């Protein structure tokens, strides 16, 4: 519950991943020490209600519930990969600065996704509690590691890959009776294989076999189908669905201002170092191209980032189409119809130009 707050408003992913991992360790220690969680021994979970009389032959009801939950999760992941949100998620993963500049509320989307993932994990935990004793030892860091192994072996960024990986990791110890340390070594070797020689894990192998038979989907197909479904370009259409408003809406309603961009007395410095921007005044007349030239390190890109909202100035005012945007996020500025490019193109790896447009 605290993780989305600690990540707010969109910490860098690597720090977020580290804090998530540490949080797991802290919770494990707390669960071990607290009486309310039963200490090391843990607590006995509740009993799952039995099937009504006459349906006992169906077996354990909790197993059916787990199967239902699995199908729901697969359905959720599959539908999200077909939805117009999918290319936006790819953009956030591969080119977050672009996604933000195009109007996507990246922090909100990331926190929302984290919330959905946490809810799914919580649901799994709830079902797990019906299986017997729940103790802290069952949730140590090795569990997180095994989940990573499941995804890597099965195939990252696929719908069924993690299911295949989970089935393998869960059943492997039962099928092959080997030492636990040897078992971990097998997992490690397979994971290394999945990120080096067999990128994409089992699913990529299955796709290649399918491709030989002429029936496999290409790597880019999920994104392609998502875009075809949306029948809209990534920027022009898709992002509007997830942005906080339509482009140009905020600037409408009056006469067009004379200047598209205005900077007044902008000052900025990185940390406590030298001032990167000193009292910068600049105005781009509407319908004109203005150039900002200067040598390396003169502050050109810093000013561009201030105008785009990626950097907040220490002083001064920025106006886009006559609207003051001081403190506004890049996505808010995108609502005013502003778009930008970056020195690095910031493209989404798995999209083709036609899918992008």
């Amino acid at each position, binding site marked *: 519950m605290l993780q989305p707050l600690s990540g707010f408003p969109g910490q860098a992913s690597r720090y977020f991943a580290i804090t998530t991992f540490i949080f797991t360790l802290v919770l494990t220690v707390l669960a071990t020490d607290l009486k309310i969680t039963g200490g090391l021994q843990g607590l006995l979970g509740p009993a799952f209600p039995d099937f009504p009389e006459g349906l006992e032959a169906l077996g354990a009801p909790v197993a059916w519930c787990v199967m239902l939950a699995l199908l729901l999760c697969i359905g959720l992941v599959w539908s999200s990969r077909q939805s117009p949100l999918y290319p936006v998620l790819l953009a956030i993963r591969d080119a977050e600065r*672009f996604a933000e500049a*195009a109007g996507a509320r990246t922090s909100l989307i990331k926190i929302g996704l984290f919330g959905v993932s946490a809810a799914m994990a919580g649901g799994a935990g709830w079902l797990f509690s019906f299986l017997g004793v729940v103790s802290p030892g069952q949730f140590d860091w090795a569990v997180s590691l095994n989940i990573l192994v499941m995804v890597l072996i099965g195939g990252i960024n696929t719908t069924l890959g993690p299911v295949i990986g989970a089935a393998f990791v869960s059943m492997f110890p039962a099928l092959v009776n080997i030492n636990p340390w040897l078992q971990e070594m097998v997992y490690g070797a397979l994971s290394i294989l999945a990120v080096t020689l067999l990128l994409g894990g089992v699913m990529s192998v299955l796709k290649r076999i399918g491709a030989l038979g002429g029936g496999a989907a290409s*790597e*880019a197909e999920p994104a392609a189908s998502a875009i075809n479904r949306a029948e809209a*370009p990534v*920027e*022009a259409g898709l992002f509007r669905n997830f942005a906080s408003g339509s*482009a*140009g809406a905020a*600037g409408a309603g009056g006469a067009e201002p004379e200047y*598209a*961009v205005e900077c007044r007395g902008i000052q*900025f410095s990185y940390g406590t170092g*030298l001032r*990167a*921007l*000193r*009292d*910068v*005044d600049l105005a*781009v*007349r509407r*319908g*004109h*191209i*203005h*150039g*900002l*030239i*200067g*040598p*390396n390190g*003169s*502050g*050109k*890109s*810093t*000013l*561009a980032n201030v*105008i785009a909202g990626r950097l907040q100035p220490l002083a001064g005012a920025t106006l*886009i*189409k006559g609207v003051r945007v001081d403190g506004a996020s890049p996505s808010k500025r995108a609502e005013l*119809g*502003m*778009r*930008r*490019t*970056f*020195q690095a*193109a*910031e*493209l*989404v*790896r*798995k*999209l*083709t*130009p036609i899918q*992008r*447009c």
Partner: protein
Amino acid sequence: MKSVYDLFPALYEYRRQLSSHLSGGEQQMVAIGRMLMSDPQVMLLDEPSVALSPVAVGVMVNALLELRRRGASLLLVEQRIDVAVRVCDRLYVMTHGAIVGEMTPDEVHNEGLSIINKYLG
């Protein structure tokens, strides 16, 4: 979509290639084309000619000239003075975090690069 292909005809050929398989210049074209698809009212281009081949720079300049003809509101951050002089209506010279000069491309044509160099030292 068609207007983007008109600006960057090469993109039509590469329309089904993954972006990771495109060259630096083609990727910049895709980035600008992607931006244009949303019909932006204000554009900010951060050194679009960086690390491009002379041919790719030529394509980029033509695209920017076309945008200028269409009446785009655009701030072009550019290290290549020749590119900026060809496409811009007005130039700001920046050094050490401050705008130190302002001129039109005509002034640069008339007086040569010395007008810029006097600001840059």
